[in-house]
């Protein structure tokens, strides 16, 4: 069992940004943190929490070899962009507008977003 822990109702947050040109509304979108892996441990299952990229592969190896049900808690970035396969100008504009309106924490991902968008459009990153 995999839990993506990003403390965000992420799909809807991205829909707000890309479709409605609205910034993330924290009161509705932010989720409280919860110790998913530790909770699994407390039930006699196996909990594995991973927050370092170099440990992801190893975590899956451990999970697949386990003698009991496993909860893999992956602590992920809520601002990693949810890009459609083809980024339309309209969506890119909506996203930029949302950021300009003061989205509380989207700014650090704008560089990544543009890179991903280019990769989606041209097939290869930077090509």
């Amino acid at each position, binding site marked *: 069992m995999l839990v993506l822990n990003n403390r965000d109702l*992420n799909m809807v947050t991205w829909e707000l940004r890309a479709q409605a040109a609205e910034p993330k509304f924290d009161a509705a979108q932010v989720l409280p943190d919860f110790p998913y892996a530790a909770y699994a441990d407390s039930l006699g299952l196996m909990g594995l929490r991973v927050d370092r990229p170099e440990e992801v592969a190893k975590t899956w190896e451990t999970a697949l070899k386990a003698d009991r049900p496993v909860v893999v808690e992956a602590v992920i970035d809520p601002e990693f962009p949810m890009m459609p396969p083809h980024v339309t100008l309209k969506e890119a504009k909506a996203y930029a507008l949302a950021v300009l309106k003061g989205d509380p924490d989207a700014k650090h991902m704008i560089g990544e977003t543009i890179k991903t968008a280019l990769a989606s*459009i041209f097939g290869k990153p930077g090509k």
Partner: protein
Amino acid sequence: MFVLHHDGYRFVMAKTVGDFIHERMRAWGVTRVFGYPGDGINGITAGFEHAEARASPATGGARKRGAVEENESPRFIQARHEELAAFMAGAHAKFTGEVGVCLATSGPGAIHLLNGLYDADTDHMPVVAIVGQAATTAMGGSYQQEVDLQALFKDVARNYVTTVTSPAAVRHAIDRAFRIALSERCVTCVIVPKDVQEMPFETPPHEHNTIHSSVGYLAPRVIPREVDLKRAAEVLNAGEKVAMLIGAGAINASSEVIQVADILGAGIAKALLGKAALPDDTPGCTGSIGLLGTKPSWDMMKNCDTLLMVGSTFPYSEFLPKEGQARAVQIDLKGRNLGLRYPMEVALEGDAAESLRALLPYLKRKPNRAFRQELETGMREWRETLTAMAQTPAKPLNPALVFHELNKQLPDRAIFTADAGSTATWYARYLDFRAGMMGSLSGSLATMGPAMPYAVAAKFAYPDRPVFALAGDGAMQMNGLNVLITVKKYWK
């Protein structure tokens, strides 16, 4: 109510309506009923208890874990919440092809079932819901836990919902609920007032005002007429750039889809519920489609001159060709799904595998493979994009990386369940399915919360297969954490 009768050498309890419901479900081949108890269904849960006691009399009904006697079946599986029980019943149907069954008490229990039942309904899964009701002596009296269940279930179980008010009516109510669920691929509901559950079962007498029903459903072979298959072939043979879109209806048509696509030089996009219908390394396969799809699927639909849609009601028209751009053929088991998403020149009602097999002899091999080769090149580039995206640094983890690494280690015959939300995107794009794998999620309702209960149902159905539930923290907090308690209860 306890009714004793003498069977020749001792007094035994007479078979109640509750006992009969259990026995009849066994006759319908039901192995598991997902539910939550309540005093409105005590007479039905007693049927499970009596069967377990009969199966293991020496231990007073206590059973070794995992060992289910045949005459004890179906077994009662306790969910944490009735909605979870309904999700499990729907998932059982999705992963086994059998009917799924859930059981809930009157009033609040019945109301809790609804979202899970709508999920099954909108994804066309055969599910029977059995629910309790206030006693017939109290019905209509605004009694405790009494709500108008006929009205409540009338939409989701529009094909069949009935209230059993006589022990002689329970047999046909159960039989019809199962047969209609299977033949219409829908949700049905049997409401049983609590006093009726405890009454002695009565076989309907051979007289006026009685119903004489039976058990069993044999799925038919549904193939379009030859003249229509030929018309479909003409359209497909005339095109130069054929795009195929397959969905859940094509899940048992993998080899036929591969053959048809090969002859037509077609690309094949998979709607989310059809992810397991085709291995991702199939030549011409462009993977998922839609907002969480691939760029080659998008390009294929923008550039095709012919569309062949098989077993899908994929809803997003902006990801399909423009009206008039492509000539189109559709195959769907249900006539009501035809000509729904794109104007079809030939719309065929039929089973995916049988109809494609019947279509094959009329198709001409296209010598020009350029369209498909372009898509294959596009897929290679798309995969490089996915890898680059997964390797983009993030704080702290990039979600795509988590799926990218899992994809490298997928065990054979794995079963996947995914939740609504961004998880579904990573599931759609990053997991390459191989033959023998299965996967599902809430396709049409796209509700939050199915990943964990679906996974539990999958594991019960296939204890020897690896099952992955892929969920976000929203879904886990909504209901998944509670499903972990069910996992704890049953995993050993």
